[in-house]
C-alpha cells in the first residue's frame, strides 16, 4: 500500500467545483480544504505508483486545478 499527500492549488473561484469533482474520485482517504499556501490537501491510498500516477492525472484533468505537488509517504505514525 502506498500513501501520499497531494497538495493542490486551484484558480480563484473554482474551489467548490474542484471539490465536487474530487469527492467523486476513488483511492482517496481524506480531502481537506485548507487556509495557507495550498487550497486542498488530499491524502491518497493506492496499491502502486502506477495507480498514484493515474490519480494525479485525474486530478490534473479537473477544470480549475492550477498546480499539484505530490508527497509520497515513506513512514507514518498515527493514532
Amino acid at each position, binding site marked *: 500500500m502506498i*500513501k*501520499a*499527500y497531494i497538495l493542490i492549488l486551484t484558480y480563484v473561484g473554482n474551489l467548490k467545483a474542484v471539490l465536487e469533482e474530487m*469527492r467523486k474520485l476513488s483511492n*482517496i*482517504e*481524506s*480531502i*481537506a*480544504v*485548507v*487556509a*495557507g*499556501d*495550498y487550497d486542498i*490537501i488530499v491524502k491518497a491510498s493506492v496499491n502502486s505508483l502506477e495507480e498514484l500516477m493515474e490519480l494525479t492525472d485525474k486530478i490534473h484533468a479537473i477544470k480549475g486545478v492550477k498546480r499539484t*505537488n*505530490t*508527497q*509520497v*509517504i*515513506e*513512514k*507514518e*505514525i*498515527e*493514532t
Partner: protein
Amino acid sequence: MRIRKKSLFYLLAILSSLIAAGVTSIDTYISIKYKINPWTLCLAIFIAGMIITLLLCIFLSIPIGKKAIGTRIDPSFYRIRLLRKEELPYHILAGIGNAVATIAYFFIISIYKDPSATISFFQVVILYLLLTESIAEKNAPTLAEVESSVIVTFGAIMASFSLQGEINFLGLLIVFAILNPAWVLFSIYQRRLKLMKINGRHNDAINIRFWNLLFTTLFTSLLVYFIDAKRFFEVAVVMKYWQIFFLSMGVTFFSYILYIRALGLGKASVTQAVKSSTIIFSIPFSILLSKFVHISLYESPQQLVIKTMGIILVVMGVISFALTEVKAYIFMKASTGYSIDELMRKIWKIKGITSVATVAGKYDIIAKARIRTLGKGYERIIRELEGIKGIERFEWQSILKEWEEV
C-alpha cells in the same frame, strides 16, 4: 463512503442515545409491570442479551453480494469471529468494568426506594473519563473541553435529578467509588478495542459487542451468585418473560454498535457527553410509556424547571463540543545532519499531534494536529516545534473543512 468525520461521530453518538432512551423505557416497563427482584432481573437480561446478540451476529454475518449484512451498520465488519489473543486482556477488563458497573447500579436500586437522585451522579463519569484521558492518553483535554464537559455533566445531573429521591453517603460512595470508575474501565478498553487493527483493518463494533457481552455475562453471573445465590437460581423462572428481555437487549445491541463506532472516532469523554442527550430523548418515550403504565413525567413544577434548565445545559454543552475544534496540517523542512526518524519521534510526542509522516518531495515531514482553539495550536504545537533542533522551517495550513473515508 466519504463524509465529514465529525458529522458521523455526532450522528452515531446521538442515534445511540436515541435508541438507548427507547431501551430505558422498555426496562422501566419491565420493572414496573413484572416486579422482578433487581439481581434476578440483571442476570436474566444479560443471559437473554447473550442469546439475542449471538442470533443477531449470525444474521449480520450472512453475505449479500460480496459483503455481509453487518457492513451496513459497521463497514469494518466481516463476520462473527473468534477472539484474538491480543484482544483478550482488553475484553476481560472491559467485561469486568461493565459487570461491576451493572452490579453497582442494581445494588443501589435494590437498597433505595427511589434511587434517581443518587443515580443521577453517574453523569460525573464524563469528568472521570476526562481525567483518565489527561493522565493516560496523549491527547490531553483543553480548557474548552473541560468547560463543555462540566456544562454537560451538571446539566445531565439537573435533568435527571429527583427532588424526592433518596440520597445518602453510602449510595454516593458506590456511585463515585465503584460505578463511575468501573464505567471508565469499560469505555476506555472498548475504545482501545475499536482502535485496534485486525488483519490490517479497524476492529468492528459488532464483534466487540458480542465478546464484551459474553465476558460481562460471565462476570455478572459470578458476582450475582456470590451476592445472593437464591436470586441466581431464580433466573430460570423469570426467563418466561424472554420476549421482552429479547426486545430490550436486541434494541440495546444497536445502541451499543453505534456507541462503539462513535468511540472509535472521538474521545471517550466527548462520546459519553454526547450520549448524555439520552436524557432529552427519554422525554417522548416517557410520554409514550405513561400511556401503558403509571409513571409521573415530573414530580413538581420546581423539578420541571430544574429539568428544563439541565436539558438546555446538555444541549449547549454538546453544541460547544462540536464547534470548538481546530485541525491543521504542518509541513516541515528538516535541516541536514539530523535524523528524520528522531525528529518524527520528537514531533509525535507533542500533545495534539494526531499523525506524523516522513515524505519524499518538497517537504520532509507532514504532521496533522487536532486542537480545541488556534491559541492552543500556538502554545502547544508551534512553541514546541520551534524548540526542536533540526526543523529548519514549517508552514501551518489550517483545515477549514474535511471529508474522510470511513
